[in-house]
């Protein structure tokens, strides 16, 4: 995410106390199954998910507070579904600003608007906006409720030795350093990852020269809750601008400054105010926070290095346009957590860990691709490229095809994995459910008439979802079974429509709610085979 930060102190910072751990007083080096480095959104999600899968986790962070660092504000539906499974989704949605309407302007004219979730029947909204420190606070609160998760603040990793079957860490604390062994080390320590540096891994990609001013302002304004993006607005000559609402009457303003902007001079409050006054005409506002950023699109060549596994910004970086940074990191965490848990419990083969890399590199490349294309559109690299971009904007009011080319950031949706874990379809399925993707949500009703949602009932384990067609079948060993039409009623028909569900249709769903096999009829042998395949056993 954003590069250099200086400036104003955040008002909402949560402090946590450093506490000496038993491991520091132990004679030998204590060994743990999993150590996660970095208690940002990604490390917290990974640690909580693993702990909920029954794996004890140590989570280390070099700070003793949250509220500082990079500033994601936009959380996508898929991320919210994951966070809901981890137990904080409803709290975040209640706290956040829900939005689904985006407007794109050229100059001061509205070019078009888009609705990100045009259909009903999903528990989670398309997007919420919420300051990253609130999300981290919710995750820390959740982490503190979980017995086999230990959060250690002010524990800074300074050394890393690779072991045959693990990693040995040297950790600096306020009362000296100690060592810790981990069977598995998850590096969630961000764009400037210490672990990545200690392993000497190359982090290559494209650096974009354009600089952006990012400002959070507090302002009571009666402006609708929607994402507004301008190409060449009159209030910000020749560049792009973005404005977005957050809770607490805070608004995010993001202004493109061009490659030659001086990062220090541009953060001068007077200069910032001069720019913002033009955007926020006639609304009095308070400056909360300001930064200048540039960005990179890059990723590690491999995410799995023996027993050290990279997730989030430590593994890949994209531009902020499209909400693909923290969102994709949380999706990394979810993808890894159940796989590592299954492997540690001896339920899977080596291929399952390898599939983390296959699936999440596919997602990272997709995100980098989208991000690069958005950037090419927003920041043309030459006058010839700018002419082409401007031609698209000129045609957009009259021609639908040109509107579809206008790219102010393609907003994050879940990747459809081409995965070795999926069993290819034998028959065609219509609907919106896709093999290798999270199941689309749908409203259901419990037997007793209580309303619920499909994804609410797919929790961290392999599940067979079966559409009633006569007697209740017996699920193969190790698989939970839900019968639609018996355990849950598809009272709106939306489930049937989205999953193209006919009587007897059978779906095998991974612990991360992704569809990995489906059939028109229930065949226990086929289900067991697909289950083994999904565990690479």
């Amino acid at each position: 995410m954003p590069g250099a930060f200086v400036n104003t102190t955040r008002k909402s910072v949560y402090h946590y106390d450093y506490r000496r751990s038993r491991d520091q007083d132990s004679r030998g080096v204590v060994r743990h199954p999993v150590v996660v480095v970095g208690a940002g959104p990604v490390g917290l999600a990974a640690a909580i998910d693993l702990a909920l899968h029954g794996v004890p986790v140590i989570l280390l962070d070099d700070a003793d507070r949250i509220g500082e660092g990079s500033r994601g504000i936009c959380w996508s539906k898929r991320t919210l579904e994951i966070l809901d499974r981890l137990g904080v989704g409803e709290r975040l949605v209640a706290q956040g600003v829900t939005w689904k309407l985006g407007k794109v302007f050229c100059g001061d004219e509205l070019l078009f608007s888009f609705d990100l979730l045009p259909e009903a029947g999903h528990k989670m909204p398309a997007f919420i906006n919420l300051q990253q420190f609130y999300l981290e606070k919710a995750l820390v609160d959740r982490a503190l409720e979980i017995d086999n998760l230990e959060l250690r603040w002010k524990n800074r990793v300074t050394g890393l030795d690779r072991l045959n079957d693990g990693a040995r860490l040297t950790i600096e604390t306020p009362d000296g350093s100690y060592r810790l062994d981990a069977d598995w080390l998850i590096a969630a320590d961000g764009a400037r990852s210490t672990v990545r540096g200690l392993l000497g891994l190359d982090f290559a990609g494209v650096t974009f020269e354009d600089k952006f001013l990012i400002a959070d302002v507090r302002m009571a304004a009666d402006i609708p809750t929607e994402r507004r993006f301008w190409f060449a607005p009159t209030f910000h000559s020749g560049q792009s601008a973005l404005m977005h609402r957050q809770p607490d009457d805070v608004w995010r303003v993001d202004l493109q400054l061009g490659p030659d902007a001086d990062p220090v001079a541009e953060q001068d409050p007077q200069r910032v105010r001069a720019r913002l006054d033009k955007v926020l005409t006639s609304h009095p506002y308070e400056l909360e926070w300001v930064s200048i950023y540039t960005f990179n699109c890059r990723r590690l060549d491999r995410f799995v290095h023996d027993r050290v596994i990279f997730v989030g910004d430590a593994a890949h970086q994209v531009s902020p346009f499209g909400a693909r940074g923290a969102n994709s990191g949380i999706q990394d965490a979810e993808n890894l957590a159940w796989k590592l848990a299954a492997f540690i419990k001896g339920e899977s083969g080596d291929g399952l860990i390898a599939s983390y890399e296959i699936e999440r590199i596919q997602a990272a490349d997709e995100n980098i691709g989208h991000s690069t294309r958005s950037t090419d559109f927003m920041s043309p690299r030459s006058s010839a490229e700018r002419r082409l971009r401007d031609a698209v904007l000129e045609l957009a009011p009259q021609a639908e095809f040109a509107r579809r080319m206008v790219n102010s950031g393609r907003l994050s949706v879940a990747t459809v994995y081409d995965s070795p874990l999926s069993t290819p379809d034998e028959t065609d399925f219509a609907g919106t459910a896709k093999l290798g993707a999270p199941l689309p949500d749908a409203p259901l009703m419990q037997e007793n008439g209580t309303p619920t949602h499909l994804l609410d009932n797919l929790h961290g384990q392999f599940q067979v979802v079966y559409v009633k067609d006569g007697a209740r079948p017996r699920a193969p060993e190790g698989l939970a079974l839900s019968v639609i039409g018996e355990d849950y009623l598809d009272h709106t028909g939306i489930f049937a429509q989205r999953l193209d569900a006919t009587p007897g249709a059978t779906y095998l769903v991974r612990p991360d709610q992704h569809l990995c096999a489906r059939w028109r009829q229930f065949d226990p042998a086929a289900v067991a085979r697909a289950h083994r395949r999904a565990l690479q056993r």
Partner: protein
Amino acid sequence: MPKLVTASQFPDPDAAYLALVEARRNLSDAEASQLDTRLVLILANHIGDLGVLREAIALAKQAA
């Protein structure tokens, strides 16, 4: 298999050429270039086939 049609398709090629000439008559270089860029986008969408578009780009580059 190439799909780009390079054989003449206009019954009256001179008339087609004239239409393009007239479109840019009295335009500055910059204006003509902007016009051409919009035309490229419109025609590319009308073709609607990425393979054909790529072949056309390759031919245009090669002819320079």
